[in-house]
């Protein structure tokens, strides 16, 4: 009997649920996330306000959607940035090997061993806070992990017969790299991309939680969580909603990555 890939199944279900919810959130939220209503200040969950209201009487569900969309955008931008640069670095080092490969990979190892929160703190403190700088800082930090995976796939595949054939036929190296080899490395890269999303969500939330990530008026789950701390006693649903959305995102991407890694 074939064992079911539960990681993949649950990963897809959770991620799809959250992403669809957030995609809806781009175009429609039950209330305007910025409309304040003093009468509804810190009211609990009800039929009208699914997750209750915050300290300004704003609908938390709408705000969680808006914050989640922002977190998701930042993660997509970050991962894309890291993925594209990582693939380019990994493709060249893996395909050509040699001294360049040795040096770049040593550098990669060093960067990889550093906790991303520390390096992103340094980057953001140098560049200044804000959405764009968070993307740049995190994107740069994600290059090594993608480069490493791409490199190992490329150096494995380049010695396969079909690549040798292509070389003999005189196919240009760039075409071999990105048309012939890359599609065969996609499977492995998918799993790494999913874990990249996982890390991006966590890192963005951490930075914004510390107040040096996304700045107001841009919404962010991390900052909501930090703001909700004050009202923990009177409005626990505020904290739980913001935190719950972060956990769902991380959990979904984590399972997805494991599941994709299990496919062989």
């Amino acid at each position: 009997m074939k064992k079911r890939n539960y990681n993949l199944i649950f990963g897809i279900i959770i991620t799809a649920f959250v992403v669809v919810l957030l995609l809806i959130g781009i175009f429609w939220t039950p209330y305007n996330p910025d409309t304040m209503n003093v009468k509804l200040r810190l009211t609990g969950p009800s039929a009208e306000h699914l997750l209750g209201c915050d300290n300004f009487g704003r609908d938390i569900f709408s705000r969680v959607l808006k914050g989640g969309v922002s977190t998701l955008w930042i993660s997509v931008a970050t991962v894309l940035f890291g993925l594209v640069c990582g693939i380019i670095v990994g493709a060249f080092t893996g395909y050509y090997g040699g001294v360049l490969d040795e040096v770049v990979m040593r550098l990669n190892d060093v960067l990889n061993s550093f906790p991303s929160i520390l390096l992103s703190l340094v980057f953001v403190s140098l560049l200044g806070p804000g959405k764009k700088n968070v993307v740049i800082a995190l994107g740069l930090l994600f290059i090594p992990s993608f480069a490493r995976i791409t490199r190992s796939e490329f150096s494995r595949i380049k010695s396969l017969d079909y690549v040798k054939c292509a070389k003999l036929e005189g196919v240009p190296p760039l075409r071999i790299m990105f048309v012939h080899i890359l599609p065969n490395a996609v499977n492995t890269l998918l799993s790494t991309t999913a874990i990249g999303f996982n890390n991006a969500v966590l890192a963005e939330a951490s930075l914004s939680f510390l107040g040096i990530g996304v700045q107001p008026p841009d919404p962010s789950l991390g900052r909501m969580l930090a703001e909700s701390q004050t009202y923990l006693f009177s409005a626990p649903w505020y904290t739980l909603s913001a935190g719950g959305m972060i956990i769902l995102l991380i959990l979904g991407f984590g399972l997805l990555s494991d599941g994709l890694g299990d496919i062989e």
Partner: protein
Amino acid sequence: MYILRKTVSLFLTLFLFSFAAFMAFQIIPGDSVVAMLGTEATPEQIAQMRSELGYDRPLLTRYWNWVTGFVKGDLGTSLGYRLPVADILRDKIPVTAALSVFAFLLVIIISFPLGILYSKLLGSPLNSLVVGANQVVMSIPPFFIGIIFTFIFGIGLRFFTPGNFVSYGQNPAGFWTYLFFPALAIALPRSAQTIKLLRSSILTEMTKDYVRSGTSRGNTQNRLLYVHVLRNALIPVITFLAMTFSNIVAGSIIIEQIFVIPGIGRLLLISISNRDYPMVLTIVMIIALVVILMNYLADLLCQIVDPRTRMR
């Protein structure tokens, strides 16, 4: 030979990182001298301050002075506090160190027994439940756990008073009690990751030929596990634990903020917002030193546990 190569690479890494960090903080856009003197300072005042702080000397000289100073314990002057950085750090470092070591011990205490136990559950109905629960714990950010702990154990059950940090000098027992919850908040997701790795490492090892041979010679499963399998299964875990320690030290930056613990993490955040770059640079370098040393130690430890790595 292996140790020599690793040691050379250790110093190379330290040099590269310190150089890169130093340079990065020299070319930052905001001028910290201006931030310190205020916008109404005259150009003469700024020039005088710059020469007092040695900012007018060549970059390489300054790098060299900074490194030799760092080694001797002379860390420069904080721009925000106008005090030697070393004096400010003296009572902050032990706090962060205590928190990190505490959290690290918790990770080991939690993850080793559970990882071994979970590996025995394979095939039982409990297995998926345990694996699922572990995955969920892994996904909870430490700062969220921190907030929940403050709420339940601080405000609700009054095990500690949030924001009212007890220093070791005042009351050692109170100090460790206060640190317990922040340490646990850092440790829980990390433990779940370690459990997952240890469990899968044991299970992979269990399918190897030597285990089958061992079983056929009449060894009990427990003997096989503790005498043979665990030793091999621990190798990837050691490297992972070194990274975990680095992550714990870095993660304490956030946790210190939530539990209002006066460690270097809180100081780092304050210094970043004050544009106190000598301070930021020093703290970053200290954390980097810990990270690099931990990785070095992990490499050496791995080599002791697994002599095969010497060949690579």
